[in-house]
């Protein structure tokens, strides 16, 4: 029987069912344990990054190469027909995808991956569309949580930092709500979790709590998901006063649960002090590495009828 993701687009985390997410997580786990099988042999994948990206692009391209495939594409659109000759994104997608078996796209405008999927018959994987979605980040986060906790269900997860603008926290909260996790939201008031996410959680009957400081909740959670509070969103005095509340230090980890793991989509600036790196709770570099396995799993599933 064909796997349910075969030839499917991966555009938005809200398009995926719990079962599909579990399939991706299990496949990533398998690919991490085994020497990589040539699941993309003779496959060419377009890797079209219309804006700069380091981790996402490199981990996608590594994933393709590790599974025996090849990629074509670009890491910014400065020298493409779009930028230089005014070609539409729709036409670019039509042409480039006709050379390839799958199309990975990152683009600064929201909805670009969905649009791309309407102009090609090959599967489109969204590598980030503006402030909207970044589903492969969410899937690698889910895989990392599964890997370090042994389960996805009923975990206590704290989200810290910029919860308003961070697409990763929105998507991860939506994904984890399918697994009945309990959430703790810790952010400056101006960067609180948007109401529409809270309404969705209310509708699903998901428990959550809004807290003012990391210390209030850190001893009761299994995962702390840190994000960066961006300086440019505040004036300097306000930032200095407020940012210190959202910095995680090793000192704060004295009485935490043994299974606690700290995640961060990276890059970090100063919201996790470097002394945390040496503690057994730091898991953000493993998380970054897992980007390869989660993306391998996705590509393998969309390009292989059976695995």
């Amino acid at each position: 029987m064909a796997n349910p993701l075969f030839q499917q687009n991966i555009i938005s985390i809200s398009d995926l069912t719990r079962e599909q997410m579990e399939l991706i997580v299990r496949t990533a786990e398998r690919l991490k344990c085994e020497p990589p099988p040539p699941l993309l042999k003779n496959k060419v994948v377009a890797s079209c990054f219309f804006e700069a990206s380091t981790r996402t692009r490199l981990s996608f391209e590594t994933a393709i190469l590790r599974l025996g495939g090849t990629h074509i594409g670009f890491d910014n659109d400065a020298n493409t027909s779009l930028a230089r000759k005014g070609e539409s994104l729709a036409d670019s997608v039509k042409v480039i995808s006709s050379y390839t078996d799958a199309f990975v796209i990152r683009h600064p405008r929201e909805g670009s991956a969905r649009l791309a999927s309407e102009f090609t018959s090959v599967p489109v994987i969204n590598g980030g569309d503006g402030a909207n979605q970044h589903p492969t980040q969410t899937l690698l986060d889910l895989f990392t949580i599964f890997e370090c906790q042994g389960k996805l269900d009923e975990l206590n997860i704290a989200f810290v930092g910029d919860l308003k603008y961070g697409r990763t926290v929105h998507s991860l909260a939506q994904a984890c709500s399918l697994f009945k996790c309990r959430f703790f939201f810790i952010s400056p008031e101006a960067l609180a979790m948007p109401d529409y996410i809270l309404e969705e959680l209310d509708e699903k009957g998901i428990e959550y709590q809004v807290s003012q400081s990391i210390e209030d909740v850190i001893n009761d959670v299994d995962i702390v998901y840190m994000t960066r509070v961006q300086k440019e969103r505040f004036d300097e005095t306000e930032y200095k006063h407020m940012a210190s509340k959202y910095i995680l230090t090793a000192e704060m980890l004295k009485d935490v649960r043994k299974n606690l793991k700290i995640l961060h989509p990276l890059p970090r600036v100063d919201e996790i002090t470097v002394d945390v790196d040496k503690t057994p709770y730091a898991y953000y570099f493993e998380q970054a590495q897992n980007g390869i396995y989660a993306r391998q799993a996705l590509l393998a599933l969309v390009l292989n009828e059976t695995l």
Partner: protein
Amino acid sequence: MANKLLVEAIRKGTVIDHIPAGQGIKILKQLHLVDGNEKITVGFNLPSQEIGLKDLIKVENRIFTESEANELSLFAPSATINVIDNYVVKDKFTMSTPKTLEGVFDCPNSNCISLHEPVTSYFKVSKKHESIYLKCKYCEKTFSKDIVAGL
């Protein structure tokens, strides 16, 4: 006779009736009804047995398209549209909130790809606490109907 409305009958065109009071002016604006040269008769705050007060719009020589009817349904879901031909009601239908809206309004998100590429806008329509919301298929943002309609 006291409750009878004395509004001139039209030979051919459309009568939008049972518009909730206050919405008539929005419909005139949204459907650009006053931009053309056709004769328009409007009535605001008219007595209605069903809804207390209602607005009413008669447009001569114009038959509403499906997409115009869809736009209309967002402002006045309880309104009725009467298509008139030779002074007789030829067709009559009641509005209901559509499940989707295609190509009617632009997405209000200036960074939405649908504004910059050759595609038509597409929204999923939902109702929450008696308010209507539209979610763009592309950028996945949800807006209240007034924001999408630019009111």
